[in-house]
């Protein structure tokens, strides 16, 4: 069983929801990424979404784009991201890691080579933002053959027939984008999100995560009440951006703790 499925199963048994923080690998500095990952787990993160830096992150807002730019200053490429996962796995064999990124770095490496290397490193799931299901059938088969999960986005504008198509291809969990826009955009409308998540649930048994607009403890709590997982991205990255080197880990841990408490209170 995949680590992602195991963790969702355990949380369900405890009546809890998953907290999935996102950070961009190599931000603010490559040496800080693995310590940040461990710190997030220690403070209560259930899984980690690790962003692969890309020069042209079209679906991301300015906060996450700046994180990519900081990482790229250090020539942070996909192979180095996988090396970080390998290093993380030396002391943590249970926390699922989901790579989030764009198609081009994967295609530049070659999909088969990437899948093999990601599996060896200990990656559990892959979310490729600009690979809609129609364009990545072969890649999906490669991931499935390697027992890694294919995470797909669903958006407020995704029609029901298309939702079904995506559900057929998805494993691990579904990621509902809570607003029309890029990562870190305006406030989410919890009533609307709730309605959409219910519609998705009626069509699948896969867990449903919600992200793109979770900004603070209050939104995290509201989302936890209706979804199986809360994904927090821009807020994490903003905290990294605003922290000095010596306050980085404590600030991130404080944020995770705050979100954890809010989610568990939902």
């Amino acid at each position, binding site marked *: 069983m995949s680590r992602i499925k195991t963790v969702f199963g355990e949380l369900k048994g405890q009546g809890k929801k998953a907290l999935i923080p996102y950070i961009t690998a190599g931000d603010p500095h490559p040496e800080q990424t693995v310590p940040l990952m461990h710190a997030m787990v220690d403070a209560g993160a259930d899984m980690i979404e690790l962003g692969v830096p890309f020069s*042209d992150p079209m679906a991301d807002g300015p906060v996450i784009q700046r994180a990519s730019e900081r990482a790229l200053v250090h020539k942070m*490429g996909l192979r180095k991201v996988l090396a970080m996962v390998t290093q993380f796995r030396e002391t943590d064999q249970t926390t699922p890691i989901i790579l989030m990124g764009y*198609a081009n770095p994967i295609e530049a490496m070659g999909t088969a080579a990437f899948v093999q290397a990601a599996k060896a490193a200990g990656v559990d799931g892959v979310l490729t933002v600009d690979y809609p299901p129609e364009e990545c059938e072969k890649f999906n088969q490669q991931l499935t053959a390697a027992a890694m999960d294919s995470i797909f986005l669903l958006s407020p504008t995704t029609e029901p027939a298309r939702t079904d198509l*995506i559900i057929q291809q998805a494993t691990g969990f579904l990621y509902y*984008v809570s607003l029309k826009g890029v990562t870190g955009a305006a406030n989410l409308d919890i009533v609307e999100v709730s309605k959409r998540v219910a519609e998705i649930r009626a069509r699948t048994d896969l867990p449903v995560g919600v992200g793109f607009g979770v900004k603070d403890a209050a939104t995290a709590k509201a989302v936890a009440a209706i979804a199986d997982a809360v994904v927090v991205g821009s807020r994490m990255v903003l905290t990294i951006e605003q922290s000095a080197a010596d306050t980085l880990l404590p600030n991130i841990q404080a944020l995770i703790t705050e979100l954890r408490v809010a989610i568990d209170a939902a």
Partner: protein
Amino acid sequence: MQLYDMPDQRGHFGPFGGIFVAETLVEALEELRLMYEKYRHDPDFLAEFAYDLKHFVGRPSPIYHAKRLSDKIGGAQIYLKREDLNHTGAHKVNNTIGQALLAKRMGKPRVIAETGAGQHGVATATIAARLGLECVVYMGAEDVKRQAPNVFRMKLLGATVVPVESGSKTLKDALNEAMRDWVTNISDTFYIIGTVAGPHPYPMMVRDFQAVIGVEAKRQMQEMLGRQPDAVIACVGGGSNAMGIFYPYIDVPNVRLIGVEAAGHGIETGLHAAPLTANSPIGVLHGNRTYLMQDEDGNIIETHSVSAGLDYPGVGPEHAWLKDIHRAEYVAITDDEAMQAFHNLCRTEGIIPALESSHALAYAEKMAKSMSPDQVILVNLSGRGDKDINTVAKLANITL
């Protein structure tokens, strides 16, 4: 009958093209695809488009025999398709009118665009003013500085120009930012892409709107010479003017189609914008798969060309396909060669060409020399060079 029938339903030209976007954009593209399918053969829509091309743009653009230039070079006769004579000074307006009319039919009151040198931005602002649409143009902060007259032109036309500070602050970043605007404001906004790139249906739609260039050229060449040219030459950045003149010729045998990329300081220096000529790897950017200038990690690398309109790391997917099936040939011209051709046309014909088009002219001159005087080269003179006089003056160390 047109035998060539590309792309497929999802915008694939063989392995190229497609729809590589985040799920948040999928429905918007599907809506656009369906609306374009509905209107692309609709007589009322086509009549409205043809009316504006004639009365607002001034089409058909003439074909002109550059006799003195041909004599000076020696060899084949060089003919110019005069897109520089269009309203707004380039071929870009053909496409912006088509897309803006579609936006109007779709009930979208707001249009957005990306622009590099500002030509597509000006063409979009122009038609937005004509149709009473709100217009926002994204432009790299570097380009805003370099192209101040076009920025002011857009503002005069009532558009809002947003400088983009992210990434390399050039065309590709403006495109990223326009996509972000679109995904956020999908319900009331139409995104007018300026070249034959982006996700399906854009490469096909922009090609169709620009194909008026080639359709006219075929008729005009027949009328003028009773025959078609031996070669058609056009510059290629994203590749919209080239696709526009090539497309109606794809099925015509014995007409060579030659796309000219920007070799910048030279292909061997790495400072260029010629992914096809330099054999760049295949990749995914801006919603489609194509040849792409990138590093070994798959990050897009910065390009160089004296001509802002050719300064793009990718190329329209249909050009990638035409290269692979050997229907079109792709070559590159350096900054210096383009500048020489720019001055040649100014002095021999009294026409100031755009620096983009000067790349096509430079290759035509090279090629003409090895051809006989009864052979014919048709160059797409995609734009006029008034916008480039500051760049040209600066290269000659002249302060205007």
